[in-house]
């Protein structure tokens, strides 16, 4: 129940993000969600895409440093406290979240949250036990 996330190394330079999205456009890869965090010198772009393998291949071909990793995607109700409840489960199990970001899900009343944790297997286990809805695919 893990989904593939693409991480791309991006120099802090004008046009770099465009270059990446343009490569994905040409490969007809759809972007479902993305987040970018940067330092003064470089950034790491994280993407959830329709075809991770293809995206990885085309970006590498164009000289980008890329990695694919497993992340957890959970569906969270669109109401106060819903995300807190999910994080509480992880917290109780002593699992730490390295980063997370959200995107709209196809269901109208829920959001999708991508979680990168330090222990995927255990996180999946406790989330399941606590009835958190896991998303098996972003598409």
């Amino acid at each position, binding site marked *: 129940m893990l989904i593939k996330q693409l*991480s*791309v*190394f*991006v*120099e802090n330079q004008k046009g770099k993000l465009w270059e990446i999205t343009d490569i994905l456009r040409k490969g007809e890869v759809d972007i479902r969600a993305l987040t970018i*965090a940067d*330092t003064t*010198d*470089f950034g*790491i772009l994280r993407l959830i895409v329709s075809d991770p393998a293809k995206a990885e291949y085309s970006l590498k071909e164009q*000289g*980008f*440093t*890329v*990695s694919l*990793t497993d992340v957890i995607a959970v569906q969270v109700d669109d109401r106060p406290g819903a995300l807190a409840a999910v994080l509480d489960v992880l917290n109780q199990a002593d699992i730490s979240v*390295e*980063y997370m970001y959200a995107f709209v899900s196809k269901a109208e009343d829920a959001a999708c949250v991508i979680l990168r944790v330090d222990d995927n297997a255990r996180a999946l286990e406790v989330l399941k036990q606590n009835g958190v809805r896991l998303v098996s695919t972003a598409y």
Partner: protein
Amino acid sequence: MIYNREIETMPRKELEALQLARLKKLVRYCYENVKFYHDRFDAEKIDPDKFSVLSDIRYIPPTTKEDLRDHYPFGFFAVPQKDIVRIHASSGTTGKPTVVGYTRDDLNMWSEIVSRFISAAGVTDEDVAQICFGYGLFTGALGLHYGLERIGATIVPSSSGNSEKQIMLMKDFGTTTLIATPTYAMFLGELADELGYKPSDFKLRIGLFGSEGCTDEMRAKIEQRLGLFATDNYGMSELIGPGVSGECEHRCGLHIAEDHFLAEIVDPQTLEPCAEGETGELIVTTLTKQGMPLLRYRTRDLTRINNTPCICGRTTARMDKVKGRSDDMLKLRGVNVFPSQIESVLMLFAPISPHYMLYLRRENYHDSLEVQVELTDGSLLENYQNLQKLTRDIHSKLKTVLGIDAKVALVQPKTIERFTGKAKRVVDLRNQ
């Protein structure tokens, strides 16, 4: 003032005759006393007694820094150790420094030639000279020290560092002559300014700057900030230290102490002599050194030589300020480093490609080096700490191995140019 009028204003014909007589003696001396030269002469079938004109020197293959390194530490010494009275060493960048040894006569000669250039710059026995070079194995401080002492100046051996105290001493002792690298002089000027001093608070009048290059623009700034007349001098420890050449008050080239040093300018690629006045690599033969004589030492410094007499009255040839280096050795805040050494450090890191670029910049009169490397290992993208740790590790490795403080920047693969011919990995933006 001309310190040694007889030598410094000698007609060139006489000077050249003196050089030839000394060269002949030196060649024989090296052959008999330095195994390296003995073997080399034999291998090249050079007869040490067949030198009849100065230009015959070109039959001797040049001596390089690598030769000195290969014979570390004392392989080039020509006298028994009991006759060596001082040892100095140059900044060793590969772990082992280049060692030089001086006999008592060598030290005398050294202070003589230092006396010449400091007198040419205008320093007299009335001056209070503050030496802000580090005292130690480096030749800068002690070289200037003994020359200044010889002419009778009052020496303040304040050494390097502790800049606020330097400024306090400069003011309280009424320092008139400042001995420093141009970079440090600039820094002292800035600091004095920050501390609220004006040039008129000091009695400074002459700056004797050396050990690194200095643009005219930077020199003008130093003069303005400190209210002094800045002069340039040249030397290197392998040859003796500071004193090989220095500017007179007209600042139209650095007068070479030609009775002790025979200078040639050659094409750094072919090693063929350059036409008179043409720029090339400076090659120097130490005509009178006893402890560690060198035949045709490749300085790697690019300059040109003017043999016409100077308006100051001296007949000694003048070399231009060094324009650059014939190899790619970098001088970074007084540390010598070769790109190849940086490369060998970078090669220790698997997550980066073997391609790199070095950018040298000068910001606020401080040199900075940026090392750009390509990140190729995608697995590090998992978190920032990995990437930051990588740049930190590269930075500290460069610092511990080479003593340089470089900014490490990660760039995307294939963004660094792949050189097909000779790689140009160094971009020096310092004098732009």
